[in-house]
């Protein structure tokens, strides 16, 4: 396809048009990011009274700290669980709603999308009330089945709880994309497969899933980034990174070291590490999706 090139007559106009965007990116990304990079090479008391250039000492401390490796592993675990749970959940719900007659479908559609409107911190509070070892309804049920539920002390339970709470919210988002994906699949393809004698499961596996591939790739990256960044509110409400750092993710550690510990150099170094990781992931995703996602 030959694209028609639009040429502006005024030379200035295009620059003016992207100016607001450029300003926003400069002010909210480049400037603070450069400050963080700068800060990560210094050691400084919180008051800014003394500042000392330490080279890459902050990075060395970070990577020689066993705790940081644990945090990376926790982040990987959390993001894979959240991604798998929420992708599967979204897919199942979307398939169920898609299979319903339209009249009922739209009602369920609204209901399933609802949790997406809930702020992460609020979601944390909801799950806190459900699973609080003292007063939570879900905790009472677990106790009835003789499960020793105490996520305040049991790290793996805490991590599971955070994963579930974070996934729950994300299911709605994925649901929306999957449903749209289903709807864009031509009926004729499904019908011809059915005529050829394929059962429901066969149609799903051989026809629908391959056609959903671009959507899945896109959601995979989005969910991965979501679970790395947006789980902060949920973690903050539910566990504050505990017990014994069991639910501390990369982002949470930046907060607790920088805000609570007032270690500016160290937490800047951590944020530079995260920034590098995000840039790499984004570049990879960009390469992939440029071809595949419409």
């Amino acid at each position: 396809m030959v694209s028609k090139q639009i040429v502006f007559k005024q030379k200035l106009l295009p620059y003016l048009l992207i100016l607001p965007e450029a300003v926003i990116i400069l002010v909210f990304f480049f400037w603070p990011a450069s400050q963080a990079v700068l800060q990560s090479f210094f050691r400084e008391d919180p008051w800014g009274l003394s500042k000392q250039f330490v080279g890459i000492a902050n990075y060395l401390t970070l990577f020689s700290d066993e705790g940081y490796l644990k945090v990376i592993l926790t982040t990987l675990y959390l993001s894979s669980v959240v991604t798998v749970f929420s992708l599967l959940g979204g897919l199942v719900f979307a398939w169920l709603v898609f299979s319903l007659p339209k009249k009922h479908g739209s009602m369920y559609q609204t209901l399933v999308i609802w949790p997406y409107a809930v702020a992460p911190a609020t979601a944390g509070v909801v799950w806190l009330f459900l699973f609080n070892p003292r007063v939570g309804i879900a905790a009472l049920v677990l106790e009835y089945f003789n499960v020793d539920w105490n996520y305040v002390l049991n790290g793996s339970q805490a991590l599971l709880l955070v994963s579930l709470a974070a996934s729950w919210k994300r299911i709605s988002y994925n649901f929306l994309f999957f449903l749209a994906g289903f709807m864009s699949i031509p009926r004729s393809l499904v019908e011809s497969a059915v005529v050829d004698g394929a059962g429901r499961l066969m149609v799903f596996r051989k026809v629908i899933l391959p056609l959903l591939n671009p959507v899945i790739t896109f959601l995979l990256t989005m969910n991965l980034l979501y679970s790395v960044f947006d789980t902060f509110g949920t973690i903050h409400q539910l566990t504050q990174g505990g017990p014994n750092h069991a639910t501390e993710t990369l982002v949470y550690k930046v907060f607790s070291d920088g805000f609570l510990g007032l270690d500016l150099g160290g937490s800047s170094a951590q944020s530079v590490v995260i920034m590098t990781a995000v840039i790499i992931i984004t570049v990879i995703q960009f390469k992939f999706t440029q071809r595949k996602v419409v």
Partner: protein
Amino acid sequence: MRKRLLLAGALMLCLLPLFAGGSQEQVSAQDGPIEIFWWHAMGGKLGEKVDAIAAGFNSSQAVYKLIPVNKGSYAETMTAGIAAFRSGTQPHIMQVFEVGTGSMMAAGKAIVPVYELMKRTGQAFNSADYLSTVTGYYTDPKGNMLSMPFNSSTPILYYNKEAFKAAGLDPERPPKTWAEVEAYSKKLVASGAVKAGFTTAWPSWLMIENFSAWHDTPIGTKSNGFEGKDAEFTINNPLVVRHHENLAQWQKEGLFRYGGRQGNADALFSSGEVGMIFNSSAGYAGAKASCDFEFGTGMLPYYDDVKGAPRNSIIGGASLWVMGGHSEGEYKGVAQFLAYLSSPEVQADWHQFTGYLPITYAAYDLSKKQGFYQKNPGTETALLQMTLNAPTANSKGLRFGNFVQIRDVFNSAQESIFSGEKSAQEGLDEAVRQGNALLRKFEADNT
């Protein structure tokens, strides 16, 4: 893509509160009263009380106007204050929690020591009027008061009298030793009155810091850090290890139930799930409001084979720091307010309303005279325990830099011990190692 960049950008921005100055306008009004800002972390009922204190001060004179501003949690208040200082918009008075004390003392020209403020402004001030166990925490090695104690508390035992009765225990006799705590817990659990014997709030503050002071044992060298930044932790000593071995064992047997950090364990006690809780004396009002059973208070238990125990407990809570960089005229007002705040009437009222300790002897006496302790049995326990014996170098308090992070290290170690992941010795050794690393870092940052 753009969204993600923005997200990352916003995150970066969050990491740099330093240059994001507060938008607070501090106009030095020529005609109106001189405004004095007080940043604090008192929410809810406590916040209303703070407003009432400010209103009281403002109506007592016309030259100054005190404006209290709630800045969120303790940590948030401190971070906000630091960010404000870096951009030159700091308040006059800032409330800082006791674990932030080490950082404040190292703040150099960012603060004005209270004793110096009083001298400079000519405000009458005698540090001997203040409870020595409270001020000991906030004085320099020469005994000069650096900050003004405001809300100080100390941990005590709360016990459920009804559960005690159901278990055949004397409801007027709380356990005195840890052996008794164990025996009582067994009886309580056996009677079915509760699910577990006891729990604790603020695990590090209670089971390491106060536990050690109460047993006249140091938690670190250099007089718990009072005598130098090159101190090292010693909490992997046989006494603390033994206590944590016991706690881990009791957790396993269901006698102890870990309820989380800070005040999260409160709910275990008020819901009647455990029969006893170790908690801050400032939790008295909250317990009164949330427990639908009668409860009593007692002093902290001790191991009776340890020489020198029980000694005295140490405090927690927060104090008021005067920030640097304001005019002399404003400092006069700050000094006047701190004097007003220390007056017996204001202090006694604050103490009786909140359960925090009265910070002056006069306020304590006034409360006695008013018959407060007779009308509210159990409220004096904290004071009796604090003043049980004269503090030693081991029980004067503690002064370590980076203590916010260090307490997190201690809490994490305790959690790994209580969950059985590590032995008491392993966990505490690890805590000492990490704690010392943070101390060294603080030492390097502040020389």
